[in-house]
């Protein structure tokens, strides 16, 4: 998107006053409205779709496969596909490595272990149909929903196959399946990544395309269980007029993400529980 100098300066000025005036009249810690649904792909263990008000749309599908544990280097595999974007482009590889870096640390790997020899391998396939702003935030919400709605079939064969080799067998009844992220247990929720834009002294969450264009710098902040977790890193949201930031900005972004994160998690969990009811009533 190319802004004229006048548009640019208008946006910049209105976003740098105290409090910032955002083009869509949001407050600094407010997300754009999203339309989300999950568990709608019948062939995957968990799935989700999130649509943003600016037309951005992503679909994530989580599939699992039973593998021999010793043959695999990792039990989680993430793939991101964006229309008209090369798979080996810097853009996609950076998205993948940001997502990997947070998911690998906060994943309940022990739940994937089936027996001594076998475990589930989780494939997280993300497809971005369209995006106008930096898609990491959208993708992270989508992955959260997909993982929350992921169900693993119940193992019926023995857990100990150290002496006797045995292929694992599963319960056919999908009602008996177990959730990967069980809400009732004392278990962590999947982690989220938030994108924060910085202009002047202001920080604001979930920048739209126009806001990214004029932002001086950006931060990617990880969030899990009400706390800020690494990776936290600076990123350039636009190639123009980037400036350095101060520690104050980072701390501001922190407290903002910490506050919004809880609200976002609450909202997403409502989506999961409502869609899950529909899902279980069909089957």
């Amino acid at each position, binding site marked *: 998107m190319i802004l004229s100098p006048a548009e640019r300066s208008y946006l910049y000025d209105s976003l740098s006053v105290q409090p910032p005036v955002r083009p869509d009249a949001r407050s600094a810690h407010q997300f754009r409205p999203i339309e989300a649904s999950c568990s709608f792909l019948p062939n995957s263990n968990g799935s989700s779709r999130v649509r943003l008000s600016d037309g951005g749309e992503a679909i994530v599908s989580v599939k699992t496969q039973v593998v021999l*544990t010793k043959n*695999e*280097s*990792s*039990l*989680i*595999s*993430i793939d991101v596909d964006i229309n008209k974007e090369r798979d*080996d482009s*810097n853009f996609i*590889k*950076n998205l*993948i*490595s940001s997502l*990997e*870096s947070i998911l*690998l*640390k906060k*994943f309940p*790997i*022990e739940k994937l*272990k089936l027996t001594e020899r076998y475990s589930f391998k989780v494939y997280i396939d993300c497809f971005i149909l369209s995006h106008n702003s930096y898609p990491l935030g959208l993708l992270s919400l989508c992955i959260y929903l997909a993982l929350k709605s992921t169900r693993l079939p119940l193992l019926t064969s023995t857990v100990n196959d150290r002496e006797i080799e045995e292929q694992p067998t599963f319960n056919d009844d999908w009602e008996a399946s177990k959730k990967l992220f069980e809400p009732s247990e004392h278990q962590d929720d999947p982690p989220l990544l938030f994108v924060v834009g910085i202009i002047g002294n202001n920080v604001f969450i979930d920048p739209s395309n126009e806001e990214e264009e004029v932002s*001086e*710098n950006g*931060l990617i902040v990880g969030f899990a269980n009400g*706390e*800020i*977790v*690494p*990776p*936290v*890193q*600076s*990123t*350039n949201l636009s*190639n*123009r007029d*980037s*400036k*350095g*930031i*101060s*520690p104050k*900005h*980072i*701390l501001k972004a*922190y*407290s903002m993400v910490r506050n919004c994160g809880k609200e976002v998690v609450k909202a997403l969990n409502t989506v999961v529980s409502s869609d899950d009811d529909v899902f279980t009533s069909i089957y």
Partner: protein
Amino acid sequence: MNVQDRRRLLGPANASPIVFSDVKEKKSKKIQAKPDDEISKMFINTGLVKNCDGSAYIEVGNTIIQVSIYGPRPIRGSFIDKAILSTECRFLPYLSQPNDSISRLTSSTSLITNYNGKLNLSNIEQKISSYIESCFLSCIYLENYPKSSIDIFIKILSVDTNLLNLVNDVVHCCSLAMVDAQIESKDLITSGNLRYLKSNNHIIMDPKCKDKDKDITNEVVEEGKLDLVVSFMNSRNDEIVGFWCEGNDTLEDDVLEKLIERCNDMSKEIRKNINFYLIESLE
């Protein structure tokens, strides 16, 4: 009765077993572990590569980095009012790249060649490239070079440290090459790198340790570790141009503030040394 075994190929009757001489393993020179609050020594040199506009070479311990900068050079095509900055980081093909959690999944894909027969950049390489690019975007006066491009090529010749520590050295090498290329910048970028161990509230400055290989189920994750690299423009009010935090622990505000401050101290210390080198090299 002939007792000779005719089914096997036997050696001559007068054969005697080989005896290896008692060679003692040469003890490799042990590099003395540096104190935790000290910055390791580095060797720097600039202008070694003759056919580029600016180059720098840096050696820290067993880590060797070489950067060459081409530009500002004219580009073909439509008019642009600002220089385009591009960065490419490559490890020598036989090097094992820092085994951070990010690279574990994708180590196999790094060997796929594209249609040019060139190796594609691995995730780690892409990640370093974009960190450096985002640092220098806020630092170079790109508007002074219309219709041109500035290309930074980072070559990692040898690596013996963790990812963020490597990034720290790469930043310094690029800054020096930038000076050698005489590209107009707001300031010289230097950075600081720390490891914070939560268990005993201990800070290691410039940590040189390699990351241990984690096993597949992620069971041997050391608890409470944070790695941080922060890049500054020290003579411009200590503005932060790059920020990257990895680790497996939550980030508290007060800890972060302290860590950024310590990074700044380290960055200033390195800045002094680089300044000294640059003044020396003028004479």
